């Protein structure tokens, strides 16, 4: 069941400890939540902005609240979850730094995954074509993308350092395969960080 998930979600799902309490922010139709519930007996809750996705998730018996990561995380109490998860949603938030800060307040640890905008394919596209990259990972044109805060692996590391957060783990993906840490900013398509305060 975990193997059927999107690669970054599968990676996160393997790391989550059984019986944990998890808040999945931007949970979509709840695929990760359902996998965690069914394979690891995780108590999973979700926050999702799209009504159709929420209806689908609730329809499969998951506890999902329709809401906005930028405004609704404030209503969750401190340290009420073992993990807060933000997968491929960071770059769509209005204030990614504040959202991660909230994740680390609500969860003892936070998984954050995002597409790496500094991947060489994107760099080449910008360098040679002079156009905003439209790639397999970033398939939308600049005017209709939901990604309003493009971020690179090094950008994120700099933010983590600046805020004094601790990195408990970091993983990088090329396609659906894990790749090395070396030159991740150039070669990783996706990054997954496990953080705590």
């Amino acid at each position, binding site marked *: 069941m975990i193997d059927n998930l999107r690669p970054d979600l599968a990676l996160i799902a393997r790391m989550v400890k059984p019986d944990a309490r998890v808040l999945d922010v931007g949970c979509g139709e709840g695929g990760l939540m359902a996998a965690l519930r069914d394979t690891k007996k995780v108590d999973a809750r979700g926050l999702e902005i799209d009504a159709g996705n929420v209806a689908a998730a609730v329809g499969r*018996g998951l506890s999902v609240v329709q809401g906005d990561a930028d405004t609704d995380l404030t209503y969750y109490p401190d340290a009420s979850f073992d993990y807060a998860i933000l997968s491929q949603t960071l770059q769509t938030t209005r204030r990614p730094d504040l959202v991660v800060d909230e994740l680390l307040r609500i969860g003892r640890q936070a998984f954050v995954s995002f597409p790496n905008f500094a991947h060489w394919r994107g760099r080449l596209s910008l360098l040679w074509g002079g156009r905003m990259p439209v790639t397999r990972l970033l398939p939308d044109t600049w005017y209709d993308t939901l990604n309003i805060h493009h971020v690179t692996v090094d950008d994120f590391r700099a933010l983590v350092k600046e805020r004094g957060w601790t990195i408990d783990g970091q993983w990088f993906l090329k396609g659906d395969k894990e790749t090395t840490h070396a030159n991740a900013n150039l070669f990783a398509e996706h990054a997954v960080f496990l953080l705590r305060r």
Partner: protein
Amino acid sequence: MASAPTTDDNRFGLRRQARLPGPLRLDSGAALGPVDIAYETYGRMNEDKSNVILICHALTGDQYVASDHPVTGKPGWWWRMVGEGKPVDPARHFIICSNVIGSCMGSSGPASVDPAINGPYAMRFPVLTIADMVRAQAMLLDHLGVDRLSAVIGGSMGGMQALSWPTLFPDRVEACIVIASTARHSAQNIAFHEVGRQAIMADPNWRGGDYYADAQVPSAGLAVARMAAHITYLSEAGLTEKFGRRLQGRDAKTFGFDADFQVESYLRHQGLSFVERFDANSYLYITRAMDYYDIAEDHGGSLASAFAASRARFCLVSFDTDWLYPTAESRIIVHALNASGAQASFVELSSPFGHDAFLLECPELNRVVNGFLKGGRA
């Protein structure tokens, strides 16, 4: 432990009425007894009594949730949600729906006989709260041998009862579905109700509520109350789509005060048909109970603390065109549930039908309710 009741137990089935000795202690300090409760049950309670669902009705609703209404002959008011193959299904669930106290469909209300005077209570009936209605439902469950509800479900005022259940009886509720509802009545909600009540009390036939012995009842006032309220159940877009500025059975304006417009004719019809099936004093009492409703106020101003003792799962649904109990009201509840660590789901569904959407065709609502109810069985 008693075994699950058989079908020939006369406590179960359609068109039941129980007379419970009470007394029921009310929030006002008064006591009510005996307490009549009219109700229906559908389906069969299973051996371990784990399949019981209580459906709570709205202001002018009744116990006929899934069977034909005895006065109007219309199908049950929530046949889209309750019935064979529906999310709440008598093949799987034991379903209870009771008429709220204060109403006029067989449960104790202002039209009932006051044992002290051997005549109708009228305005001598004690003022009620939503919590009082819920306590009466709990008395009915005791009578039926039901300890715990696998779910309590309601829309609008039914949602107020459903949401009150886990705050009043945290050990008796496993899941709670609150649709198009709120945790408190707003100033605007109270204002609309006051218009309705004043219309009833301004009717010369109301006579301080003592009209039961007479042929003349305050139907004009009640009809106006219903017309005003009915507007709040719809949406501006819905009214425009349904009626626009179209004229009723005429080609030109009459330069008079007949129902020139279709929307006027429709509202008049709504008002007139309502008075056939509803008691004006009940309308006063139930709207008052709704106005007094504020769960946070009953818990030191903190809504989250109201749910502290509950282990229930919650599901909230609002509709984007509902301006009577708008989405913001549901969000207040959701935030309180998040703060209390409760398992909560919430979705705002899209519908052109305003507040009434929960009663109308809405496949997404059925999908959410069905999934949520089955989610507890995972």
